[in-house]
């Protein structure tokens, strides 16, 4: 008997018991819908977090001077005083095969004043490379130039939050503001980046050449910087970059072999790995729950198929008597369960996608439906039908035609 004929027989058997078939499918529908929805929500959350982290910087690697403590008092991260702008320049000069941009960063808190308004915040002293490193773009005006950096010009660019608080609707470009009573000229406005992962407003920012910050705002006799930001050419070289930057800094800081590093490197892959492992774990747990419901659905199919075989035992006997081989009978019942589970799977995919979108819309969560995993879930439903349908079908195929025909 051709496969198509057996398929038609299976379809007809399913169509005859509509309510029962629907209830059997329901287990698979719920299972697949749960898998699809959970994966869509999990993947959406993960993708959003990864995107936000990568918005922090472009192949970002950070180097902090490590506080090694002076007596009993320890400072905090970035409070060590051993790292200088010279270190940043050296990294840029000597590791250009790994690094596409380096910016030293110094930070100082200031009260900003313009006309009658004022606003408190941190001034970031950076180099021109920061645009490349941190994915900032200038919305109005311009960023400071390398020449202004060398000459320690009193110029600055501001974020949209600072602009709103100091200037409201006024055009800030070309205006002069006062920082710690030193006048700085606003030459540009940075395009908004919004809040980061931790809810911190990234637009509450004011940037000036690090030379100007050191000279006019910190007025320190030291040349130390709080950190340096590096943009690597490729994240693949991260390990090598860490090693080479470390070696260079140790050499520059005249550290003997027995001495520990006086700096520490950080990069976004560490943060991404942490977030990835958290959301990954959630996804695994929820998928496990969904898989269990799929298992229950599969057992439902097996149960119904066993009932169906017993119920149609005379039909099996008759089919065998007129020439159905055990393989024909096996195929017939196996197809029946596979059709039930794939129809359940298809409906489950639709319910899952619609459900995930609805949940996402209601809760404001990002939803990411991946074609690959959707297809995998659907194929898995067919597999469930095959797996749980095999035993009843095998039992039917091994029946003795005489016992079937005599069955009362």
């Amino acid at each position, binding site marked *: 008997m051709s496969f198509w004929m057996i398929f038609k027989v299976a379809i007809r058997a399913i169509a005859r018991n509509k309510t029962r078939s629907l209830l059997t499918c329901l287990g698979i529908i719920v299972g697949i819908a749960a898998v699809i929805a959970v994966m869509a929500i999990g993947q959406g959350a993960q993708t959003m977090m990864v995107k936000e982290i990568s918005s922090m910087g472009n192949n970002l690697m950070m180097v902090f001077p490590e506080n090694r403590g002076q007596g009993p008092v320890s400072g905090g991260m970035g409070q060590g005083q051993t790292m200088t702008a010279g270190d940043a320049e050296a990294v840029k000069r000597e590791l250009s095969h790994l690094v596409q941009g380096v910016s030293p960063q110094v930070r100082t808190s200031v009260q900003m004043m313009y006309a009658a308004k004022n606003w408190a915040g941190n001034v970031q002293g950076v180099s021109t490379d920061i645009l490349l490193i941190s994915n900032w773009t200038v919305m109005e005006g311009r960023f400071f130039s390398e020449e202004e950096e060398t000459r320690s010009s009193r110029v600055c660019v501001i974020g949209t939050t600072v602009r709103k608080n100091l200037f409201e609707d006024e055009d800030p470009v070309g205006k002069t503001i006062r920082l710690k009573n030193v006048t700085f000229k606003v030459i540009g406005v940075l395009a908004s980046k919004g809040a980061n992962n931790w809810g911190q407003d990234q637009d509450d920012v004011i940037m000036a050449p690090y030379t100007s910050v050191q000279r006019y705002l910190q007025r320190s006799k030291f040349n130390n910087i709080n950190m340096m930001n590096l943009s690597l050419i490729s994240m693949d070289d991260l390990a090598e970059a860490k090693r080479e930057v470390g070696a260079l800094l140790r050499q520059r800081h005249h550290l003997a072999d027995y001495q520990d590093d006086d700096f520490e490197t950080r990069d976004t892959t560490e943060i991404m790995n942490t977030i990835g492992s958290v959301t990954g774990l959630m996804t695994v747990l929820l998928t496990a729950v969904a898989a269990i419901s799929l298992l229950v659905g599969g057992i439902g199919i097996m149960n119904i198929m066993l009932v169906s075989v017993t119920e149609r035992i005379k039909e099996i006997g008759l089919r065998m008597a007129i020439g159905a081989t055990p393989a*024909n009978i096996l195929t017939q019942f196996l197809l029946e369960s596979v059709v039930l589970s794939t129809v359940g799977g298809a409906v489950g995919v639709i319910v899952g996608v619609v459900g995930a979108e609805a949940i996402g819309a209601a809760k404001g969560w990002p939803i990411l439906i991946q074609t690959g995993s959707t297809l995998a879930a659907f194929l898995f439903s067919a597999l469930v039908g095959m797996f749980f349908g095999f035993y009843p079908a095998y039992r039917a195929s091994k029946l003795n035609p005489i016992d079937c025909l005599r069955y009362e």
Partner: protein
Amino acid sequence: MANLIEIRDMYKIYAIGDEPVHALDGVSLSVDEGEFVAIMGASGSGKSTMLNILGCLDVPTSGSYLLDGVEVASRSATELAHIRNAKLGFVFQNFNLLPRTSALENVELPDLYMGRLSMRARRRRALELLKRVGLGGRHSHTPAQLSGGQQQRVAIARALMNNPPVLFADEPTGNLDTKSSIEIMNLFTELSDEGITIVMVTHEDDIAAYAKRHIVMRDGKVMRDDHGEGGRKSVDEVARLVKEALA
């Protein structure tokens, strides 16, 4: 006439409890092409076991069975299925039609498993067979819409679908009234006259009277076989034969 069925020293032993039951106890028998055989006997005589083994629905415990010159006693389930499909037709006491399936589709079924004909040729042949058994206009009826006699006619048409050399009938009139029984038996007689070999199990003398050869069984043994001598017998003659055999 060629030897179509030949069994030698056939035993079928069931282990029920401690005592083994010999449903067939060393039976040897041969049937020629074109014969119309009635196997008779009380229930438990082994006649149904015999028919099931002859029909390749069951396998003997020991003994040989040549069907159309081929040994079939120890074949796999799949091989037996192919033999039943191509060489044997079955008519059962309770008709065994697929429920909620039209007469036409029931008749077509054996060829679906054989896959010999095109869809159109299959349909044409099934319609011809239905016409031949006298159900020309009822091909779309389901078993529930047909009387017992009509259902048995559909079953006969189905048995003929793959043009088998042998028909096996197990109490074909057991569930029918007298009028339908006569119609069905007349149909079997016609088929026999056309040359189809028929092996029928019955315990009714008047049904056995339609056959040309009569075999009486008891306790798994053949008690009497008239080898078709004297052709068709009257009901009284059959009754006497059975009585003598079991005396």
